[in-house]
């Protein structure tokens, strides 16, 4: 099993502990609250991920073969989801990011956030992370 798959399995087993929506979302919200995020002055408009109903800023840089992401959101659940996503995809090689199959999203019951519904920006975030990584292949 590769490293991103191992982290995803870890996330899945954490979520298996929750029996209801409240536990699950409280956990996501806590992840959002604990997530470092970005300073206000770093939240530049050009970093906004298009397609999210809440604002999501995503900044990447490439150093020593590794992608580093910083992100933030004005919505707490979205921020928690970004935190989960970056748990899996941050500080990885571009190839590993592009090849990652994000199976954990469906397993932890967040698949609805992947729909084409305009209120959900998870798909847009993943696309942005992957397209940023692609530039450094």
């Amino acid at each position, binding site marked *: 099993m590769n490293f991103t798959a191992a982290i995803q399995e870890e996330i899945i087993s954490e979520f298996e502990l929750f029996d209801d*929506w*409240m536990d699950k*979302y*409280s956990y996501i*919200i806590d992840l959002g609250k604990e997530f470092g995020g970005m300073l206000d002055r770093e939240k530049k408009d050009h970093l906004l991920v298009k397609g999210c*109903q*809440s*604002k999501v800023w995503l900044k990447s840089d490439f150093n020593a073969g590794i992608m580093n992401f910083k992100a933030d959101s*004005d*919505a*707490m*659940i*979205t921020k928690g989801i970004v935190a989960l996503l970056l748990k899996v995809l941050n500080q990885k090689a571009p190839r590993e990011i592009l090849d990652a199959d994000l199976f954990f999203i469906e397993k932890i019951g967040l698949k609805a956030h992947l729909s084409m519904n*305009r*209120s959900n920006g998870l798909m847009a975030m993943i696309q942005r992370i992957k397209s940023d990584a692609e530039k450094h292949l």
Partner: protein
Amino acid sequence: MPDLLTHIDAIREDFPILSKTINKYPLVYFDNAASTQKPKVVIDTLSEYYKNSYSNIHRGVHHLSQIGTDLYEASRKKIQSFIGAKHAHEVVFTSGTTEAINLVAQSFCKKYVQKGDHIIITELEHHSNIVPWQMAAEHYGAIIKVVPIKPDGSLHLDVFKSLLTNKVKIVALNHISNTLGVVNPIKEIIDLSHQKNIPVLIDGAQAVAHGSVDVQDLDADFYCFSAHKLFGPTGVGVLYGKEKYLNAIPPYKGGGDMIKTVKFEQTTYNDLPFKFEAGTPNIAGVIAFKSAIEYVENIGFAFIQKQEDLLLNYATTALENIEGLTIYGTAKQKASVISFTVKGIHPYDLGTLLDQQGFALRTGKHCTEPLLDALGVDSTLRASFSFYNTIDEIDRFVTALNKCITILA
């Protein structure tokens, strides 16, 4: 009028979807401004038509085509009487309000608008009553003038009057704001415009489900609405237009049914309303729209308004008691729509957690970005009620909302 509560229970049984559970919670459908649910009679009409009477209309000599044509044209007559139009041929079927507005924006402007002319819209408009005018204005070199709102969401009529110059070729505004629920004084606006011989288009998408509309009494030149917000199928809308304007403006789409004769040298167009109905329409949808209107007429607007006012007032009072909650759109004349935010919490977060408990609300800009900019807010939650909603649902909603606020605080 029967006892309200018993009556509502019976009404709810007419809507199969209302007994669904979402995420193990009973569905509470508060997204009626986006689209209303369908009574069984509408679903049955659709299904019956496809099962027993389906074929193309207006062109076949055969039995089924005749039945379909009769049913389709019976819908047009039903809509004529529903909105009080003078002639059935003033009722043009479109795919929805959006297409109806686009039709007028394109065809009216082609006939009447020239470089430097003005088109008046308002800050309250849905994108579908902004962008079509911008597209036409760009093409013909016209200028869009916008009537601003007051803090309570009502229109600045003084500014409107000052914008009514002889450069204005058309005024386009909504009857009821989809985001705020504010009811606009359209009769007064139409009167003021007509004093200067300026025609008015009313976007009635939000209005037709809440009260009776009489286009002749209003003297509206164009009135647009959608079936799906009036308990009917999706993909069907109506453009009502005064005969004189519909005759004067050119067709917007070319194709079958909208022509009299086609020669490569010259084609002559069909009479109203067919001139504007190119191609095979949403036959089943139009036919089932009649069932929806009959259903609404049977319930009656007296009951609908009473129930919706009750829900609006009850919910407004309950929500105002929540600390940090702000309601947008507090004008006196309001339909059963409440847009709100809770201080320090993103509407998306609240919407997501409410969804987990079976509550269907809308969050975001509600296709009215300029309005939200004017209100100085990024997004709101919107609860919009229909006559099939209940006080009990509002009570459960307020409890759920308080729980969400606690989780997110």
